[in-house]
């Protein structure tokens, strides 16, 4: 318990210190900057934006966490969510269905497309032993190519001003949000992220599947001896990871943009990897990590507004990840030593004095 709270607290304090130094170096007042970042949350729709972004980051981080649970590094989330979003936008705009059904179909299509984009790396890994980092880096690049191809005007793209977009998704496919008036609109699919996180939490903790996933992650050899089919787990976890990744773009597309455009945001995949590690692959940890990440991301605008270099927020993201993991590591070592001490005490092995009796010299 101590480790779960102590480590992040230490780490955030430490990275805040680092950034304060950087701010001082550039002649800004760290306290003011922090004040601006926090004050910013109360302004306009920023709070709602943070909530919306949190949901998106959560989905990306959950996708990454599913891979991490079994020691797979799915760098391909970036490509998977792009393909998921694009294919879902294309299919969603072509369909006419009653509202709820329409959303569900779009979400399923997005997941399938994301999973499909993870399929090749999964197959290459289990049949040919290709490292997933390498294959997913390649697939990310190729995803850009496919996206550029599909959005060509002779394919599925239409021209809107200087922008290219897919056909807009009809109203029945748009997921309504919670309108908070001046405060903005919370995406309806924020709840999707919550549901995915809850399902993830339960599956990991309570089900055979989660157990097998974690077991293969911790020790592939022990898992194999315990009857876990490692190859199957690799394929399944990469596909599930890809499926969740496919959903990453959905809150924005179904809740706000209603089409895939050239402006479609990039970078959620890499953020997701960082957040999953920050949250220790735990759903609650991921939720808080996403919140922190979203807060930092949104504060870039606020910092820029008061003339503070907004790169500070990026530096802060990097240094928080680094210091959190370092802090975790330190606290883990402390905990392990404490546990060994406890075991030692309980078993009495730490009391050699009664045994002393040797005379050898």
């Amino acid at each position, binding site marked *: 318990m101590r480790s779960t709270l102590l480590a992040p607290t230490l780490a955030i304090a430490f990275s805040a210190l680092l950034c304060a130094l950087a701010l001082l170096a550039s002649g800004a007042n760290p306290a003011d900057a922090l004040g601006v970042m926090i004050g910013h949350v109360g302004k306009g729709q920023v709070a709602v934006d943070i909530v919306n972004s949190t949901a998106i980051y959560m989905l990306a981080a959950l996708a990454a966490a599913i891979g991490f649970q079994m020691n797979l590094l799915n760098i391909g989330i970036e490509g998977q969510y792009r393909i998921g979003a694009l294919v879902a936008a294309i299919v969603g705009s072509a369909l006419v269905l009653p509202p709820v059904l329409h959303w569900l179909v779009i979400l399923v299509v997005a997941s399938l497309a994301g999973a499909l984009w993870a399929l090749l790396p999964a197959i290459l890994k289990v049949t040919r032993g290709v490292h997933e980092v390498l294959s997913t880096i390649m697939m990310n690049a190729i995803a850009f190519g496919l996206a550029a191809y599909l959005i060509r005007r002779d394919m599925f793209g239409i021209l809107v001003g200087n922008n290219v977009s897919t056909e807009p998704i009809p109203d029945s496919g748009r997921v309504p949000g919670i309108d908070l008036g001046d405060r903005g609109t919370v995406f309806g699919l924020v709840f999707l992220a919550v549901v995915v996180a809850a399902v993830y939490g339960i599956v990991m903790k*309570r*089900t*055979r*599947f989660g*157990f*097998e996933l*974690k*077991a293969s992650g*911790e*020790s592939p*050899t*022990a*898992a*194999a*001896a*315990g*009857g*876990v*089919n490692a190859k199957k787990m690799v394929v399944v976890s990469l596909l599930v990871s890809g499926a969740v990744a496919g959903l990453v773009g959905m809150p924005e597309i179904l809740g706000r943009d209603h089409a895939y455009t050239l402006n479609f945001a990039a970078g959620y995949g890499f953020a997701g990897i960082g957040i999953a590690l920050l949250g220790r692959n735990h759903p609650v940890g991921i939720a808080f990590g996403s919140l922190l990440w979203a807060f930092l991301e949104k504060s870039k605008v606020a910092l820029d507004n008061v003339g503070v270099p907004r790169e500070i927020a990026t530096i802060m993201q990097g240094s928080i990840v680094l210091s959190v993991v370092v802090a975790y590591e330190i606290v883990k070592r402390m905990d*392990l*030593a404490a*546990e*060994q*001490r*406890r*075991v*030692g*005490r*309980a*078993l009495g*092995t*730490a009391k*050699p*004095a009664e*045994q*002393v*009796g*040797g*005379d*050898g*010299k």
Partner: protein
Amino acid sequence: MTDTESEPAQPPAVALTGITKRFPGVVANSDVHLTVRAGEVHALCGENGAGKSTLMKILYGMQAPDEGTIEVGGEPVRFRSPAEAIKAGIGMVHQHFMLADNLTVLENVVLGAEGLHGIGRRAKARIRELAGATGLDVDPDTLVERLGVADRQRVEILKVLYRGARIVILDEPTAVLVPQEVDELFETLRSMRADGYTFLFISHKLDEVRTIADTVTVIRRGTTVGTVDPRTVSSRQLAEMMVGSELPSPEHRHTPIGDDEVLRVEGLTLRTQDDRTLLDSLDLVIRSGEVLGIAGVEGNGQTELVETIMGMRRAAEGRVLLAGKDLTKAGTLARREAGIGYIPEDRTRHGLLLTQPLWANRILGHQTRRPTARGAMLDIAGARRDTERIVEEFDVRTPGIEVAAASLSGGNQQKLVVGRELSGDPVLLIASHPTRGVDVGAQAAIWDQIRSARARGLAVLLVSADLDELIGLSDSILVMLRGRFVADADPTTVTPEDLGSAMTGAGSDRVDHIEEGETR
């Protein structure tokens, strides 16, 4: 106690005084005193976790003592790293091989000692020169991964010789060797002793100790119990010094073998990707209440046999039937569900999830069955309850079932694994080296559990490198060599030496109570 023999004129090769080493929660060494004369083979005995390896690592500079002093050749020294110990003429062959598979023999040997003869032609020449002394006959440019166990052992000794060490620590060098290989090793040691080398020799096998050692020091619970002359004590006395109580042993107790055929293996063949044959058309049958022992030098296919029967490797040909049911195409989980329990040879790699709590380890391999699971959901309460039962029944010494498996000592880890594998009423237990590396008390407990399960009708396939254990527990023994069964021995009459001969392929014509062939 033979202190008087040391001549005052010559200082001892090594003198350890008052060594204490604490680990978190454990005192590994506590006020240890040890004196090793120059030119002797000094054996170190003690039960698991007594602190032998730790003491040697301290002498070798790998760990720093919390208290105490070290003298080498009469000079007080303080090693901060192995490099300094090596400089002082100390070399160490570790309990676990310390070799990099993907480097060549040459590279493994010269690593860290590049200053002596470089890493090129001169070094190669020097290695060729020394190889003879160790009996190693391979090209120095061979990758170590291509070497067998005995050759790896030789490379380890070569590493020590190459550095010009005069004091050589051998930490359980014989654990993985068959009797003939042990004899060869001892030959090497004797001739080197004649050349003036000093040895510190660790072994659990007390007869070996009495064969080779000039002096024996016994360690118990991290401290020296005494130093004795091996010629004047019996193995039993030694053992009692180590344990502090009477020594149990694997005696053979016959129980009737049932008629039901539990496991039938027919024509089992396993090949590697590049088409080498690892298992060559093996047949065997085990009936209920029967223990079938498999003897063999490590690396002759026992691991592969067990893993193929468990479905962890895919057989190229052959069938595996459990109680008449064909499992040839089944996966590991299906085989477990059909009633096979599996004690793997390496519990930390194949048996346990080290960072998970004990109850989670109870679930492994039983994730589809009661009481640890219900449908697709885990039954965590059930798993907890049953873990408590195992802890109770198998005397697993732990402060609770929430601690990580890594916190348990090896023997207790092994008891947990055995308890788990005997849960859920298996009809067949596959036990690979079930007592390897566990201390005497735990060993006896594990033997008892296997015996009583057998009495209830369990069939057991036992693979062990401990020939006494094999002979003591088995109803019949098959000897494996290069992926085939080469002999069939009767445990009531066979001796470890006979078995050893058969295992190396040397003794096929020497013993009458070993029947040739691939029967059964």
